[in-house]
């Protein structure tokens, strides 16, 4: 991944936070909300976009007789996030290399 070809998914801070949060494992909507601090509406919109792009898989089931939605990062989402973090790392490294 190059600095000038960052996927659209990584253009939003909330989406980056959601993906980082899902990197440590599957989460429910409320867990993601608690960690990222996003509002219900905003999170729903971002999750739909990430599902469309194939970054997130959504599972719906029942827990204690109540509907529950869980979110998991797909392989594509995981790999692209790793590439994105490496790219960020390269940007910072290159800057310090130039300074030296």
């Amino acid at each position, binding site marked *: 991944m190059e600095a000038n070809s960052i996927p659209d998914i990584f253009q939003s*801070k909330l989406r980056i*936070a959601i993906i980082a949060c899902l990197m*440590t494992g599957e989460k429910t909507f409320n867990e993601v909300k*608690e*960690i*990222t601090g996003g509002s219900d509406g905003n999170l729903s919109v971002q999750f739909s976009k990430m599902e469309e792009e194939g970054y997130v898989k959504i599972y719906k089931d029942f827990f204690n007789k109540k509907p529950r939605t869980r979110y998991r990062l797909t392989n594509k989402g995981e790999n692209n996030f790793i590439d994105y973090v490496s790219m960020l790392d390269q940007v*910072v490294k290159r*800057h310090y290399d130039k300074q030296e």
Partner: protein
Amino acid sequence: MNEQALHEAVENISLIKSVISRTNKSFVAFSKIFIYWGLLFTVVGIINLVQMANYEKLFDSVLNWPLLNYVYLAAVALIAATIYWSISKKTPLISLEKHLIKIWMLVLIMNVIPTRVVLTSTALDTSMTNIVVTTNNFSTMFFSLAIALIATALFADYKQLLNLGLIYIAISVIYAFLRFPLFEGATLFQVLFALSLPFTFFYTGFFLRSRQGRGD
């Protein structure tokens, strides 16, 4: 590469780092549950002190209605469970706190289980009808709290909780094996016993909440 790209890269790296560390070491719901449990056990401690102060008056009623003790325990357990459910419903327990709360629950249950006393005597001793047996789980309670504190400290990497756990182990061992003058005075001992549970929950709850606030 311009300064703006660098600035954005640094900002996004710190955002990712903070989210991942928050996911691994979030104690939002855990600390809230502990503070409320601390309040509950303060009330329980006060009731226990009142019971101990009026032991002779209450002794007969406990003998007549042994179920009273169980009803009281069930009520405390029900309130503790309600606190847990209502908080975890609003703020779900995540990652590490989900596992640590199970350890603490087991420790609490361990302290509630009554000690079973079996008296055995030879045929000659059967005339001794006025035997009063008092059970005391001071050492085991402190030791069990120490285990939970040390487990929390090791997984969450907080030295202060580890130190408190070690102090509890020391208290537990001193009480079990040594005749220490501090423990001989009944009132002081009873107050210490009644306050230990709420103090542990308040300390752990407020400590983790303060760490959360500082983003540690």
